[in-house]
């Protein structure tokens, strides 16, 4: 396996989803139609800055979409998984499963 950032790049792994927070965001969005920023914050216990950065990375890659609305005059940002993100998540999960199966059978 080729090395990257002190670790190995594994076949089939999605580079963006190797980050656990980004992976969790996509998994959560695959289970629900839309999740707000504040709900992500509650579920993931991340700081506003870090969570915002991870969401923006996924948004820039076209994995997730964001929609703003106002509730009681306060802005609420809703996120949802796009088909590109869903495909990437499925491929990443399959690669993860293959790897863990292979290790389990060693």
């Amino acid at each position, binding site marked *: 396996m080729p090395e990257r950032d002190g*670790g*190995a*790049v*594994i076949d089939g*792994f999605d580079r963006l989803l*190797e980050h*656990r927070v980004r*992976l*969790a965001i996509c*998994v*959560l969005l695959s*289970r*629900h*139609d*839309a*999740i*707000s*920023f*504040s*709900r*992500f914050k*509650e*579920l*993931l216990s991340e700081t506003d800055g870090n969570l915002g950065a991870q969401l923006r990375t996924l948004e820039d890659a076209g994995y997730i979409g964001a929609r703003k609305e106002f*509730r009681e005059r306060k802005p*609420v940002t*809703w996120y949802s998984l796009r088909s590109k993100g869903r495909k990437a998540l499925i491929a990443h999960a399959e690669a*993860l499963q293959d*790897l*863990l199966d292979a*290790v389990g059978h060693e």
Partner: protein
Amino acid sequence: MNIDSIRDDVSYVREITRADTLRPPSSIALLWAALVAVGFPLADFAPSRVGIFWMIAGPAGFLASCALGWWDARRRGQMSRREGAKWTMHWLALVVAIFLAAPLLQTKQVTGKGFGALVLLLLSLTYFLGGVHLEGKLRWIGLLIAGGYVATFFLSTYVWTIIGGVFALSLALSAFVGEPKRA
């Protein structure tokens, strides 16, 4: 990236998905506690009005519950059609079963008391299965209603008032057990 860090990441995601289920808002349980507190005693004090009360209150309560669930999911920042459909189908099955059973009463194949007992049995089963598949605390309400069903064979006076009172109280108490925090 090594296998231990991958395992840690998978565990982390698994823990988060375990916590992502939203409980229904307490307002739904309180709504039904109020409807039951009014609707059940009618069978003892104004039996002729029981049918019309539940014909209106049953479907209206169901629709109001759907609306309360939807509004609460929005407020808490997590919308899930799949989750909503699961809960809706569960309770819709009860509403449909009661409506399908209604001709038994109209064609006098069962008495008013017998029909009431049948509805209690359906309620008990629906709550119990809801406890098994949706939210654990519903199981205890199901068992309590089953107790109410058995009581219909032994109590002769104010039977529906007593059962309704206990049922309404259990619903009201369930509203405050494991109440979700506002996000």
